[in-house]
């Protein structure tokens, strides 16, 4: 018997407490006042034999409880038990969707049963089913249990990933002697990249092939182009194939088109499609190959045109900005819907009205009351975008108060002659300019705020070094500050050709929101979504498409030797402590110790009350 944490055995010294108490309190009797003491003969307290036995039982129970507690904390284990363990046979069954071809999975199960039946009498047998994940179907144990567990197996929708089953088997073998029998179609796509898989040298790996692959046709991709849906069909057989692609929307066929694919090629077929939101499925007929890749799902979202609110005043009408955004409005997609409001219109908050927009452009803060300021701040913190252009009607103190910034960071407009220089050409606002960003230097600025760039990302500066275009995050949203006017009062920017792309990109940048993916592969779906192909709804109501892994549609196979060559046996030099930890974890003797302690305490309480 060894202990993982022998230091806890010092806790056994606590047995001294009940022993000392037992010895000290043995002759202690309570004091009783009395009168006729002289009539009492001195009779030392001699405990009866039964009482002494009870006391000894109590002492033994308390000592045993302390010893068991200390031993449980020390985590005991039997070191020889691991070595004496019977050899392990692991039967790994490939249940990827490539096994779902007619009659194929039955062959897999036959081979698996045969592999189980080959187990020696003393051999422990385990069953692992794998695709892109490995699941233990039968823990190491009797062959009969392993055999019966095979009857529950079905081919799934996942792709083959050998790394998953190899690591799970190595974990199960736990450094001991093991034999892994992988029953698979040896798809080359099951190996990710050319890197070899490391396995313990104590584990032998053997493959059992399931035979030649069927002639498979599959829809391996689907995408929405401009008013067309395009399907990519792979012919993985050695013969030409032709057929029809059907486009279904809400259970109704909306388009179909023919295809013809040469052997081992992929062809694209386009089907007309009037854009409409929802899920669509592109399917072909292939009764010989893998059923799971005969359909591919696609989710189409209705085009949403971002709405932008421009807060202006009579002195800052936002004329040039509005005209520039209107020029971009006709773009589909990519345009904006703009709405010009005065500060009076959002007085009192109007948070609901603000929240309907994707971005807010602040050209005036005159008469912007506290409720409106709080509504703007809340809008930004919940993911909205805010573009602030320094203008005669924009007060630095009001801007600073929006998010609790220091007013010292904003020096009101100073008269100066300056030009603009892009300092971060990779910034999303300036990136579209590319080499033409230098043209921004033609704009003459006569007046601009002097902003302290601390806490901001500066994308462009004036030629005197002061920040001109700044950005910072606030909550989930972002704020972009342009340190000069956009209404041609402090500069001549609106009459330059760079103005329209500049303000368009600036507004687009603040209006952009993180786009969540809507295409997933079986095995890599978000939590709560079943790992089956189809169109599913997330909790928020957003639809996502889940498809099979197109790599699994390939019929490119490898030989058993090539499979073996991908394995790299490594000697397991597990540290002694790690081995002991594993042994102790497997035996979990401490749990029995605590249970015994509980039993002893129960006995103690009964004896104590007797």
């Amino acid at each position: 018997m060894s202990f993982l944490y022998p230091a806890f055995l010092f806790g056994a010294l606590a047995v001294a407490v009940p022993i000392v108490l037992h010895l000290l309190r043995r002759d202690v009797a309570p004091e009783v006042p009395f009168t006729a003491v002289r009539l009492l003969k001195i009779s030392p307290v001699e405990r009866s034999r039964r009482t002494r036995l009870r006391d000894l039982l109590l002492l033994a129970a308390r000592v045993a409880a302390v010893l068991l507690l200390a031993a449980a904390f020390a985590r005991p284990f039997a070191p020889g038990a691991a070595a004496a363990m019977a050899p392990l046979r692991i039967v790994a069954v490939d249940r990827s969707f490539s096994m779902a071809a007619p009659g194929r999975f039955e062959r897999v199960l036959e081979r698996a049963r045969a592999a189980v039946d080959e187990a020696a009498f003393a051999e422990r047998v385990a069953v692992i089913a794998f695709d892109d994940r490995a699941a233990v179907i039968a823990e190491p144990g009797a062959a009969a249990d392993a055999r019966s567990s095979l009857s529950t197996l079905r081919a799934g929708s996942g792709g083959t990933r050998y790394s998953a089953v190899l690591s799970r088997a190595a974990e199960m073998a736990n450094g001991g002697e093991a034999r892994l029998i992988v029953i698979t179609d040896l798809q080359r796509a099951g190996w990710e990249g050319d890197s070899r898989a490391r396995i313990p040298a104590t584990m032998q790996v053997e493959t059992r092939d399931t035979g030649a692959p069927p002639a498979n046709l599959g829809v391996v991709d689907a995408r929405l182009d401009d008013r067309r849906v395009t399907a990519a069909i792979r012919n993985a057989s050695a013969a030409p194939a032709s057929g029809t692609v059907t486009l279904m929307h809400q259970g109704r066929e909306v388009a179909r088109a023919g295809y013809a694919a040469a052997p081992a090629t992929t062809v694209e077929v386009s089907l007309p499609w009037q854009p409409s939101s929802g899920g669509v499925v592109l399917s072909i007929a292939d009764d010989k190959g893998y059923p799971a890749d005969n359909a591919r799902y696609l989710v189409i979202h209705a085009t949403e045109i971002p709405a932008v609110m421009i807060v202006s005043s009579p002195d800052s009408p936002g004329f040039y900005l509005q005209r520039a955004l209107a020029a971009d409005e006709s773009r589909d997609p990519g345009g904006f819907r703009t709405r010009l409001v005065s500060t009076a219109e959002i007085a009192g908050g109007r948070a609901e009205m603000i929240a309907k927009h994707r971005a807010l452009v602040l050209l005036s803060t005159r008469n912007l009351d506290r409720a409106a300021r709080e509504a703007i701040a809340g809008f930004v913190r919940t993911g909205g975008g805010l573009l602030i252009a320094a203008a005669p009607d924009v007060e630095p103190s009001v801007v600073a108060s929006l998010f609790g910034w220091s007013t010292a960071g904003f020096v009101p407009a100073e008269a100066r002659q300056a030009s603009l220089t892009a300092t971060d050409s990779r910034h999303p606002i300036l990136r579209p300019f590319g080499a033409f960003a230098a043209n921004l230097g033609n704009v003459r600025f006569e007046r601009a705020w002097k902003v302290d760039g601390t806490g901001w990302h500066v994308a462009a500066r004036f030629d005197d070094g002061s920040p001109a275009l700044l950005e910072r995050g606030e909550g989930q949203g972002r704020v972009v500050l342009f340190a000069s006017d956009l209404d041609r009062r402090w500069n001549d920017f609106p009459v330059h050709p760079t103005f329209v792309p500049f303000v368009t990109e600036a507004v687009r940048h603040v209006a952009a929101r993180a786009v969540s993916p809507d295409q997933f592969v079986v095995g890599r779906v978000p939590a709560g979504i079943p790992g089956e192909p189809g169109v599913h709804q997330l909790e928020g109501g957003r639809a996502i498409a889940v498809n099979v892994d197109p790599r699994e549609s390939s019929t490119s196979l490898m030989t058993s030797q090539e499979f073996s060559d991908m394995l790299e046996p490594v000697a397991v030099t597990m540290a002694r402590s790690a081995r002991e930890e594993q042994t102790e974890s497997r035996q979990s003797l401490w749990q029995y110790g605590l249970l015994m302690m509980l039993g002893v305490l129960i006995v103690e309480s009964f004896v104590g009350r007797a």
Partner: protein
Amino acid sequence: MASAPVGRALRFLDPGVIARLGTMELKARTVVEGFLSGLHRSPYKGFSVEFAEYRQYLPGDDLNTIDWKVYARTDRHYVKKFEEETNLECHLLLDQSASMSYRGAAPMSKLEYGSVLAASLAFLMNRQRDATGFIAFDEQIRFRLPAAARPGHLHALLLALERVQTGQRSNVGRPLHQLAEALVKRSLIVLISDLLDDPEPVIKGLRHLKFRGSDVVVFQVLDPNELTFPFKTAARFTDVETAEEIVADPSRARTDYLRELAGLTGRYDRELRGAGIDYVQLDTSQPLDFALLAYLSARARRK
């Protein structure tokens, strides 16, 4: 027919009831009235030279008390009632030693029980116009109230009883000798004590009193715990007077203890009765009527 009223009356002699009463006078009155209402015959109307009243003869009245002259005149039997002559001097001796403060399972301590007993006797004596004195002692006399029958004396005596405090160690013999030397008149001496003392000096002191011509009644007041030793678990028994400690297992020591106690009380009973002294053992959990009857019996003998 009289059993029901007697039963109700005896209820007022229960120490548990008496312990809850307020003043000593109320306690004594309750005891005496309850006791007297339970008797069939008036015990304290005696002979006297001083005429009190005429009363129609009732069955049970002494025939000697019938006034035949009145019978001749009226043809009815009348008896003559006289104020009883006060010729008895009674001394109540109450042990106030520390052992008397012991209270085990009974509702009153021995000192409280003895005080109520003394007060009841004083109340009774006062109604009989007897001169009553009171002495409280432990190893020596701590308080003395000379015997008197004047009005207001009872109140002083009851007040003194109420103020009795627990004293020191007991030495019963010494105050008995002191009292015997001080007595100038034959008296009735009532000793109330637990007598858990060396019996030899106690008996000598009592004999001394008897020798001086006094009638002596001894009430040995004991707690039920002292009488039965009901303890169950082993304990350190500490003497409340001497602080002497003895560790004993009651299951083993009970028999010896009870034998020793029986020897002690048997000796008192034997030797005191032999000397013509009334010895009454009282249990503080029991009613007081037994003690009062013992007193009246002693007084009747004196007549």
